[in-house]
């Protein structure tokens, strides 16, 4: 080995890499990303980072490690792969390889020099990244810098760079170098980072179910080439507290050490392994591209004769050329286009990357769509439309990456092969060349879409529920997604025509994608610029893209117009002849530039016009800047004066009477109605404050039937009666309004919570969607700028009278008259008292229904659609005619809920319990009194079977809100919402056991236990009585833990005592108009019913007022014969926290032999078990033994799922 020769090769490679714009674009990207991340918008989700407590520092080592890994893996590694992978390839392309290897240069020196050159380049890039991180993260002026930025510590930056970035880049460099050297095909070089990104992004970084065996998890941490999984699973997700993350260095363990070791070994080993291959290639033993040859189809060449001379006829024998009678015509455009497409496709078919990329994309696309999760982590029942839409973002991203590679390589091919001299001097028009290439490459996208379609059809057929429909795929993938590919291909072609160099084109295109990601991440990608339609599409089987249809069309026209512009520009820029430098400078003359601009102007006209219209629509829409400003003005103007009921008392609502006219086809509605208001305060009210929606076109007021004028305080209308409303006095406040809902375009697609659309209508009083609401509404106009931290309540706050957490403070009666087109069914709260069909003024057939509350309510809503209905047992299910999959299960859940919750808690006071389906423009279900609304993805499109009873579960939960939410409305304060959501889950557990026995209840208990284990934020979790919904992880605690803990309390107290206590709670609070309960009220009501008050106190102290979760582990399990039976011994340990009695069983056979859903194998043997109970505190363990008269097969902790715990799957030992 000659160091001198290695240095010579390395120096040349270094200078070449540094000269490429791609490298400088990388530095620019790294700079921009460092700058963007330093703004503090992205912080690790640990500790009390959201609200209260210490903030996570943006420059802590933990934070910096995450940034460094992500930046390196997503950006630097990609560029490194391209640079290293092309190092040898480039020498082949320019024909320098053979000459180089006829010098004394040895293969090892060549490989070492090349790799060293490109490595030094990227060491420079990493150094630059380190510098920019330090500069931006330490010096950038940011808001709350003192809170979110710690002191400068070099180690916080340097250690992640050395321990993660450097090995990751060396891995990328080494593997890409080896692939490029072996395959000698650019596409495989690009495939490598993309494949790694897919595997990591969608699997290694993401997939971590709570039941995952820790050994498998360890293995995955070791396998992940980025190290991010280890950082997340072993460092960030463990309970350490924000203080540790801010100040302590990341503690490396054996897993990450092994991970780093193999990364380095593989990276450098791959380079070393290239040496013999280079040597064999030179000696002719191996041919360049051996790897790629293995991957593509072989075709037998026709046998050639021994030599040309042997077959060649003497020149003198040739007939004259004239006898060939050939002539030149003008090739038709179609013929030229066809020829280009044909040739390109043939070349494409020989690209091995195609056969690697396409299956990978299909796998990713269909896999991603198939495992979509709905409410309460239930799997979604897939329909054609959902499958088509769920895969849009992923398929768009991946196909764009693929098209980037193929478009650039296709344009580069003429240069690489030398065919350009022949092709460019042929009479074929430039546009034919470019369009032909684009068309051929588009076939790749088309092939992927076709493949994804076939795979989707297979998924639907296997699922066996929803019919296979072609049109959703056609509309979504062809009409909506395909223009994205057209634009992207045109854009990449334009980029290449502009820079005329593959590396710069790649870098700029990747930069454009990263920029799009960045703006999407920041929520700044509106309809005008959202060319890939990321996050915009919202599928509903009930109506196709109704909400955003106009914007979709305009966006696609803009995209196609932009594609035309880029294509036209590319044709103009794409020079088939090499420009002269001097003449190029002359072309920059302003007059020529103006002329060129004018020539291109017609092409730019269409996208500018449609884009301008979109920009206007977005701005003037309900999510536009002016609308946001109006909402802010509302808050700013009124918060100080009207937020507190004591400062600005609001009369209570006694009765609401409204007439609603709905015109779904026009998205319009008109309302006329009145509130009967009474002053229940002890001071006079001289003005009634009403919040109106500022998007309504008009609103008029009456006071006691007399037209009144309001003082409009930025949307808060003050209505002054002739004289102040004295305590106990009332008035009738009339209103008349009309509008479109939603008013105008969305900002960037997606859904909306309430709407009037042809496919359905959802309106409610959580927001002023169709009715003005009494008083100041605190949620309007609040964002991160003016949100303040949640109120800290004293421990005894619950002893005072509490307002409601939601809805009106007093129940009121309602009369709602709704007029719709005759084919609609309109539902509201209460009972249907009349329904008639009639003809409107314009001759249309209309239906007018009247709903009246047969028992007071605190909330009001209206829902309408074209429904079929299933009525049974005092319940009604209004559903989209195509969604019949789960209606029987849902109906049975509704009936069971009505029957049993009435029996267990409180008699259902209304006449009928209804569920109405609405389009999935919002993903919620809301339990308004008597009139529950379900988004179609919840229940109706839940994949349910006898094992999971998922549709039953979600229906039971929502039905439970009639009791927990409506009859008992929780009080305002921490723990209040657990009385609604947690108790709804508890009720569901009860109902499951009642209807589906032990197995159904265990299934649901384990499901929500898994959900809690996965979603909890261990370091910031607070006791149940402190949960106010403000922190990450509060949701799962509210729902899952809240329900589970109540279930455990139920076990502790016994069923009868618990239900008696709960009935007492209803007796107290249903008629209450002054006080509303929180968790402490629940406990105080239950305690007298507890058979063992001391046990009750101990339980509530640890589960409600502290944070505990047991985690059991069994070890040293063994069994031996003992007389006629068996003796089984084991040791059980509580690795977690909390002290709970728990049963442990030695069992044999299958407990639920028909339980195919859990994958059990039937042995036909009767299940038997023998149990022992043990109480273990945190860290305690106990050796146990059990004598059984059967040979046990396993030891199971808590076989009946009675104790909430972590890692339940590990609390088991097979014997």
């Amino acid at each position, binding site marked *: 080995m000659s160091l001198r020769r290695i240095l010579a090769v390395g120096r040349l490679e270094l200078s070449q890499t540094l000269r490429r714009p791609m490298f400088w674009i990388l530095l620019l990207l790294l700079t921009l990303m460092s700058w963007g991340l330093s703004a503090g918008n992205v912080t690790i989700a640990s500790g009390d980072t959201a609200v209260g407590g210490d903030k996570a520092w943006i420059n802590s080592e933990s934070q910096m490690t995450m940034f460094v890994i992500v930046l390196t893996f997503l950006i630097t590694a990609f560029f490194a792969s391209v640079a290293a992978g092309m190092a040898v390839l480039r020498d082949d392309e320019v024909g320098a390889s053979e000459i180089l290897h006829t010098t004394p240069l040895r293969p090892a020196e060549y490989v070492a020099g090349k790799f060293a050159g490109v490595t030094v380049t990227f060491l420079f890039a990493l150094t630059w990244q380190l510098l920019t991180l330090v500069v931006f993260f330490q010096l950038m002026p940011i808001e709350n810098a003192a809170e979110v930025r710690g002191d400068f510590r070099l180690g916080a930056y340097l250690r992640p760079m050395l321990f993660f970035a450097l090995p990751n880049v060396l891995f990328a460099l080494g593997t890409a170098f080896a692939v490029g050297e072996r395959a000698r095909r650019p596409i495989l070089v690009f495939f490598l980072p993309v494949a790694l990104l897919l595997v990591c992004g969608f699997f290694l970084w993401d997939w971590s179910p709570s039941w995952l065996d820790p050994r498998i998890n360890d293995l995955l941490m070791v396998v992940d080439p980025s190290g991010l999984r280890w950082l997340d699973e072993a460092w960030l997700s463990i309970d350490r507290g924000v203080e540790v993350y801010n100040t302590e260095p990341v503690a490396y363990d054996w897993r990450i050490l092994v991970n780093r070791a193999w990364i380095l070994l593989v990276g450098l080993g791959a380079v070393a392994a290239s040496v013999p291959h280079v040597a064999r290639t030179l000696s002719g033993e191996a041919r360049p591209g051996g790897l790629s040859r293995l991957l593509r189809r072989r075709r037998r060449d026709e046998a050639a004769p021994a030599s040309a001379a042997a077959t060649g006829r003497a020149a003198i024998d040739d007939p004259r050329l004239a006898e060939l009678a050939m*002539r030149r015509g003008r*090739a038709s455009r179609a013929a030229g286009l066809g020829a280009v497409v044909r040739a390109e496709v043939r070349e494409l078919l020989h690209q091995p990357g195609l056969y690697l990329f396409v299956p990978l994309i299909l796998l990713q696309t269909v896999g991603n769509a198939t495992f979509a999760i709905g409410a309460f982590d239930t799997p979604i029942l897939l329909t054609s439309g959902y499958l088509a839409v769920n895969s849009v973002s992923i398929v768009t991203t991946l196909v764009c990456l693929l098209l980037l590679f193929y478009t650039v390589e296709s344009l580069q091919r003429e240069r690489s092969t030398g*065919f350009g001299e022949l*092709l460019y001097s042929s009479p074929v028009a430039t546009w034919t060349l470019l369009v032909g290439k684009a068309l051929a490459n588009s076939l790749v996208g088309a092939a992927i879409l076709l493949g994804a379609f076939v795979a989707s059809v297979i998924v639907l057929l296997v699922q066996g529920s929803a019919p296979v429909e072609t049109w959703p795929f056609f509309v979504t993938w062809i009409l909506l997604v395909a223009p994205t590919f057209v634009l992207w291909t045109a854009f990449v072609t334009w980029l290449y025509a502009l820079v005329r160099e593959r590396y710069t084109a790649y870098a700029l295109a990747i930069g454009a994608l990263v920029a799009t990601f960045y703006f999407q991440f920041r929520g700044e990608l509106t309809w005008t610029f959202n060319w890939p339609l990321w996050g915009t599409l919202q599928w509903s089987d009930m109506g196709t893209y109704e909400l955003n249809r106009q914007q979709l069309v305009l966006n696609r026209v803009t995209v196609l117009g932009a594609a035309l512009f880029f294509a036209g520009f590319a044709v103009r820029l794409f020079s088939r002849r090499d420009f002269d430098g001097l003449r190029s400078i002359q072309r920059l003359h302003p007059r020529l530039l103006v002329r060129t601009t004018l020539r291109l102007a017609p092409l730019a006209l269409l996208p500018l016009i449609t884009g301008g219209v979109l920009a206007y629509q977005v701005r003037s829409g309900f999510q536009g800047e002016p609308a946001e400003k109006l909402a802010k003005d509302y808050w700013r103007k009124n918060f100080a004066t009207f937020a507190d009921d004591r400062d600005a008392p609001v009369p209570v609502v006694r009765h609401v009477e409204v007439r609603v006219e709905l015109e779904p086809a026009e998205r319009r509605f008109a309302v006329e109605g009145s509130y009967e208001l009474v002053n229940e305060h002890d001071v006079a009210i001289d003005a009634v404050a009403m919040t109106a929606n500022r998007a309504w076109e008009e609103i008029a007021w009456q006071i006691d039937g007399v037209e009144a004028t309001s003082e409009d305080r930025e949307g808060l209308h003050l209505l002054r009666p002739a004289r102040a409303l004295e305590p106990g006095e009332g008035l009738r406040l009339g209103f008349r309004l009309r509008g479109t809902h939603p008013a105008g375009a969305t900002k960037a697609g997606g859904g909306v919570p309430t709407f009037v659309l042809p496919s359905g209508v959802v309106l409610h009083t959580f927001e002023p969607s169709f009715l003005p609401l009494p008083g100041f509404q605190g949620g309007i106009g609040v964002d991160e700028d003016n949100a303040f931290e949640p109120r800290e309540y004293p421990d005894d706050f619950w002893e005072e009278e509490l307002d409601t957490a939601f809805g009106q403070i007093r129940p009121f009666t309602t009369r709602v008259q709704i007029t719709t087109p005759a084919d609609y069914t309109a539902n509201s709260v209460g009972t249907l008292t009349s329904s008639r069909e009639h003809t409107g003024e314009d001759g249309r057939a209309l239906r007018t229904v009247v709903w009246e509350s047969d028992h007071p309510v605190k909330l009001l809503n209206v829902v309408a659609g074209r429904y079929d209905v299933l009525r049974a047992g005092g319940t009604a299910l209004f559903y989209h005619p195509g969604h019949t999959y789960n209606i029987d299960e849902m109906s049975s859940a509704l009936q069971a809920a009505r029957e049993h919750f009435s029996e267990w808690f409180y008699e259902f006071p209304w006449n009928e319990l209804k569920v109405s389906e609405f389009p999935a423009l919002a993903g919620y279900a809301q339990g308004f009194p008597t009139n529950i609304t379900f988004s179609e993805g919840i229940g109706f499109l839940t994949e349910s079977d006898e094992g999971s009873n998922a549709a039953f579960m979600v229906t039971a939960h929502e039905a439970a809100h009639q009791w927990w939410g409506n009859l008992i409305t929780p009080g305002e304060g921490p723990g209040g919402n657990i009385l609604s959501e947690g108790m709804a889950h508890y009720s569901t557990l009860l109902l499951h056991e009642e209807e589906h026995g032990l197995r159904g209840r265990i299934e649901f208990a384990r499901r929500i236990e898994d959900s809690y284990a996965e979603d909890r934020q261990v370091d910031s979790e607070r006791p149940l009585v402190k949960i106010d919904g403000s922190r990450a992880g509060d949701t799962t605690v509210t729902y899952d833990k809240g329900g589970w803990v109540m279930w455990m309390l139920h076990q502790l107290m016994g069923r009868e005592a618990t239900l008696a206590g709960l009935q007492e709670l209803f007796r107290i609070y249903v008629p209450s108009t002054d006080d509303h309960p929180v968790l402490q009220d629940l406990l105080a009501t239950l305690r007298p019913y507890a058979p063992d008050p001391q046990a009750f106190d101990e339980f509530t102290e640890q589960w409600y007022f502290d944070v505990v979760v047991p985690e059991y582990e069994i070890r040293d399990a063994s069994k031996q014969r003992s007389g006629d039976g068996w003796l089984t011994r084991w040791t059980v340990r509580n690795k977690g926290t909390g002290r709970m009695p728990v049963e442990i069983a030695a069992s044999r056979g299958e407990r639920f032999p028909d339980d195919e859903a859990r994958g059990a194998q039937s042995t036909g043997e009767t299940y038997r078990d023998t149990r022992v109970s043990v109480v273990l505190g945190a860290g305690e363990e106990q050796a146990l033994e059990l004598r059984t008269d059967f040979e046990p097969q396993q030891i199971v902790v808590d076989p009946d799922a009675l104790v909430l715990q972590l890692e339940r799957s590990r609390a088991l030992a097979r014997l």
Partner: protein
Amino acid sequence: MLEIRNLTKIYPGPVAALQGVDLDIPAGMFGLLGPNGAGKTSLMRILAGLLEPTSGDVRLHGEDVLADPQGLWARLGYLPQHFGFYPNLTGEAMLLHLLRLKGVRAEGRSLRQLCGELLERVNLGYAAGRKVKGYSGGMKQRLGIAQAIAGNPELIIVDEPTAGLDPEERMRFYRILAELAENRTVLLSTHIVEDVAVLCPRFAVIRKGKVVALTTPSQARQELEGRIFEGIASPAELDDLRRNRQVTQAHLVEGRNLVRLYEPRGDAPAGFERVPPTLEDAYLVLMRDVGTRGDDSAEAPGDGHRRAEAETGAERPGATA
């Protein structure tokens, strides 16, 4: 008629590849002879519409081909010096692809049949079904020739066309070119004097970006009549001759140096006999002559690196342009 007026091409550097070239090229075969780096390929690529000149005009039958290269390409058959094909297409598919792009028609039969006949014409019929990446250099050159002559183009530009061809194929190509030149302009760029001697009734010599001669082979030879001498010399004598006389060629024949001298005054050294001049003698004398007069170097990128040596001054033969 192809008219070239004051054609200049300056590459960044700056390097003047063409310095005001003026040429009128009539119908028939026309040779462009010059050493590597003389600017031939730059000129060929400009004429083929693939390289933008810095200044100057090029007209074909009065039409400005620089302003409208698309119009030229419809009438052009071009064989560049360096070219390639899509490696994964067969020879037949590749040629068919080009015929389609060029709008070539074959009367009374299909394009595929014509393609086969053209491949036969360049002796590639047997390899029509093989992928181009498996072709030898000569086979690729012949495939390039086939596409260049397809469709009877009005103007044929061939740049170093015989490179890589064996003698038999070279003869075959000569014959094809000769036939083509009967009723159109064929511009042959080469540094192989034999190509010009065999094919071209007229040719220009280009050196360092300038046309230094425009003549016919016979006229060029005639200019040297009586001034070329041939004899045998030992290595020491050859060194002496190189120092004192103008050696045009020195070949080893049976281990001895067979030396040809250009002696403007006609007085040969002892042992040397007057011999009929060849075109190669004329070309080499011309190269020395221009080099001696100290013209600017004009080596264009991609035109090679070898230069003719400049020695003593000499009378300029064939300078009749």
